[in-house]
């Protein structure tokens, strides 16, 4: 069971990290933020799985902190990116 949990943690982490390719290509700022948002959630899931597998105390608390702070970064991004002038030439649609 331990191996499977670690495997799942690694799989989820590497999967969402692949999504970071969006940070490279964009095109808009929001697309980049979405990739980081997904990485945050995936990282939390991976930490929870690793916590359950390893039994090291306090890893859940680290995940809890990560959950709060991932939101924190996203909020700051949205706040700055959607500022009144919005001339980033996104080419989506």
């Amino acid at each position, binding site marked *: 069971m331990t*191996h499977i949990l*670690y*495997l799942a943690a*690694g799989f989820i*982490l*590497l999967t969402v*990290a692949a999504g*970071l390719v969006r*940070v*490279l290509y*964009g095109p808009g*700022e929001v697309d*980049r*933020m979405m*990739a*980081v948002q997904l*990485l*945050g959630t995936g*990282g939390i899931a*991976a*930490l929870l799985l*690793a916590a359950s597998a390893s039994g*090291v*105390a*306090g*890893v859940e*608390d*680290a995940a*809890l*902190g*990560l959950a*709060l*702070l*991932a*939101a*924190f*970064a996203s*909020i*700051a*991004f*949205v*706040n*700055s*990116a*959607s*500022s*009144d*002038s919005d*001339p*980033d030439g996104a080419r989506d649609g």
Partner: protein
Amino acid sequence: MTFYRALDLSLALLVVGIAAWTVLSRDLFGAVVGYVAYGLLLAIVWVRLLAPDVALTEAAIGGGATGVLIIAAGSRLRSMQTSEPGDTANGIQKALAAALSALVAIALAAVMLLLPEPAPTLAPQAAGGLEAAGLGNPVTATLMVYRGFDTMLEKAVLVLAVVGVWSIGPDRFWGGAPAPLGRTRPKRALVFLAQMIAPLGVLIGLHIFWVSADEPGGAFQGGAILAAMWIIVMIARLADPPRVGSRALRLALVSGPAVFVIVALLGPFLGGSFLSYPPGFVKPVILFVEAFMLLSIAAAIPLLIAGPPLRSPRP
């Protein structure tokens, strides 16, 4: 075991790759997004190195607060969207910089691979503090007992940094409030989120502080989470940064190092030495000191992000 090696290797490659993106990315916004992702991944690396205390600190301060600091500065400069100035360094200079950096990296990597066997460790000395204090978390014991002096000075550094940031502002605004962090009309979803998440976050921050005697956590991590909640509240414009002249604010700011110094000075009178805790009351006294440190950190980090005063002290 090869399975775990593969996981570790891919995690390391990821971290180095996203760091390279952060450093080499063409625009500032992309770099900051990369940096926040880097902070998240680094927190996972710290868990892998069996340091959940550091993971929490890195996620909160290294990734979160530093990211927000740069984002806030970038939007104040309005340079998030403007194009970067062209590279000043020419090809030869870049090659020299790359060679120097590569040399440093290779030397460090060689040192890391040639570390002495068996590894020197201070764990037994730190464990002594652990038993004397009746604490279960070795990192807290190290911070408060074995290396208490470092922690005390570090708190003073934080206060000095706030004073430094404040004094960078123009003279005529001294005593006034820093510029607001959010926009004039914040979105309703943001206000809702701030109202919901801030009380929960305060609870979690206090929890992480409270369990730190025995489990990972501590005044740094709890304080950083409290600080993040205050910043969210300020971004949602539910509260604006306070005037830097406010007495309550200044008291909160210095309370951490002040209480630590007072307790340290009381040591000799209670039968110990400087920075020793009264025997029999070690754990409660440490928690008492840490509670004020929590307050100090929760006040200092948002003030560092809010920046120097930019509003007239008299309304």
